[in-house]
């Protein structure tokens, strides 16, 4: 429709007004990442003299070397985060799917009551302190479960599932029942395979949430073996002492520790997987968002 025709004046004007802010904003969205990556390869001296820069004048791996001379704490945090992301996402997605399906079953007389039971929690909450005390009383302090269990149920995901599953014809459930299939069987064998789009959506958003989570660690974990990746980064960036600790373990002389570039290198190390995966997964997120926008 729009092939090779001369642009009318109004469209030229539209572009003159619209494109610069759009492209500028797009650039602003990406530049900080380049800045962080660039600075992570700069020498400490250069950062001190010239500040952070997009392209380092002198390329050095010093900061990465310092970090990876003693990578134990980072690798352990990676392990923790990968573990909670996988376990949390699988369990959470399954629970939300199952719950959403039951709440959509038209022959289930109490579905509205249960729906309200879940929905009410989005309107009112007891606040952070009582929640914190409940978690502590359950023995979640210094337990890896503290990073998973409190975040397993997402009412918004249940609502999303309800909307999606509602679009699957009820006759499928009904005919399977007549054939003698049990309710759980119907869910696993018939509904689950038909729900791939919504499973992908809530799965991806849940995984992103677990990967990026930090404050459950801050509230409940003192044992540094159980630090999640984001919390470790938070701690290292905000606590120069902890950063020097890492450097000291790798036999650096404290004065020459490349603190500033190390902060940037750590940020790169922590964000790396997300940045690498981003080009491949972003379209699924966009699809999911559209799904949510239409149904939600």
């Amino acid at each position, binding site marked *: 429709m729009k092939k090779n025709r001369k642009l009318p004046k109004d469209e030229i004007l*539209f572009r003159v007004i619209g494109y610069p*802010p759009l492209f500028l904003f*797009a650039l602003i969205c990406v530049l900080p990442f380049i800045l962080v990556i660039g600075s992570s390869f700069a020498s400490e001296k250069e950062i001190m003299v010239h500040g952070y820069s997009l392209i380092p004048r002198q390329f050095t791996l010093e900061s990465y070397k310092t970090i990876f001379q003693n990578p134990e704490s980072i690798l352990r945090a990676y392990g923790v985060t990968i573990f909670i992301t996988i376990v949390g996402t699988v369990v959470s997605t399954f*629970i939300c799917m199952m719950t959403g399906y039951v709440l959509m079953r038209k022959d289930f007389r109490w579905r509205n009551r249960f729906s309200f039971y879940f929905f009410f929690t989005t309107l009112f909450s007891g606040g952070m302190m009582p929640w914190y005390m409940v978690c502590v009383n*359950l023995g979640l302090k210094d337990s890896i479960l503290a990073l998973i269990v409190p975040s397993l149920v997402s009412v918004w995901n249940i609502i999303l599932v309800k909307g999606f599953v509602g679009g699957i014809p009820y006759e499928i459930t009904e005919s399977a029942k007549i054939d003698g299939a049990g309710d759980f069987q119907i869910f696993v064998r018939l509904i689950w395979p038909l729900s791939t789009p919504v499973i992908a959506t809530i799965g991806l958003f849940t995984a992103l949430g677990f990967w990026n989570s930090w404050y459950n660690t801050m509230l409940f974990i003192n044992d540094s073996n159980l630090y999640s990746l984001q919390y470790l980064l938070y701690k290292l960036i905000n606590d120069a002492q902890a950063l020097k600790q890492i450097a000291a373990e790798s036999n650096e002389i404290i004065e020459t520790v490349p603190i500033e570039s190390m902060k940037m290198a750590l940020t790169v190390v922590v964000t790396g997987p997300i940045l690498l995966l981003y080009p491949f997964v972003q379209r699924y997120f966009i699809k999911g968002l559209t799904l949510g926008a239409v149904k939600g």
Partner: protein
Amino acid sequence: MKTKQPAYKPKKTSFFRELYLRRTLLLMLVPAVVLVFIFNYVPMGGAILAFKKFNYRDGIWGSPWVGLKNFQFFFKSGKAAMVTRNTALYNIAFIITSTFLEVFFAIVLNEIYQKKLKKLVQSFIFLPYFISWVVVGSIAYSLLNYETGTLNSILTSLGFDRINFYSKGGYWPFIIVIFNAWKGVGYGMVVYLASIVGIDGSIMEAAEIDGANIFQRVRYITIPSLTSTIITLTLLALGKVFRGNLDLFYQVVGQNGMLFNYTDVIDTYVFRLTLKASDIGQTVAIGLYQSVLCFITILIANWVVKRKNEDYSLF
């Protein structure tokens, strides 16, 4: 979500027969029901601590009642007014800036016909949504810190004085609004873009043939078809006007006491008190105060949405 007459009408059976018949379905609900009970409903009960002076020896039930004392302290200290005002004003600023940018960018992006360019721009703007707030905090620090921050490097190279952002509160409302937009606009833009794509193409073509220029098409077709989404999303956001984004405020600003007058919101205040765990009754009271405030605003917002457009109301 309200009681629509179900197409399929369940037969009336006795309670216990129903319980037996639905045992599998009920069992399937157990995990979520139990988790929500423990992590949502039990804390609601724990909110009675707002009216008690908690001590560990007497526990939740044994601790003495103190009436509204916990609230009084919060209000008398002047903190209540400050954090409540900050929370509401920030959220309103977020709503205005984000909505404007999201709609504007979605409209412009939709008019880019080079597919590759469009995808690229969209990917760029969506990118910050994926990274954690901790990383955003790290990025903020690399831009703003006094000695080596990029912004200060630029300022000095232009012949200006360095600005110590981390000790001057006045800059922070702008910084926070910018970072909020930076991280969130991509998400909203995609939502609006989806509803623009949903507009019937033949209407656009007809308008074009009738000689409507692009501004007229945007003004009379695109924007009107977005208004109901804009209004709904805005009202829902207004419903959460007293809920501060802990991630944003805690990670971008940090624990910097010098800035609190400008940057402290209810959530960060409660979070700090929770970490300290020194005066539990008071912390619970502030949390409860916020919950009630949120509850009321959500009800109002929902009522307004419902009057405007029934389909979009939450309940």
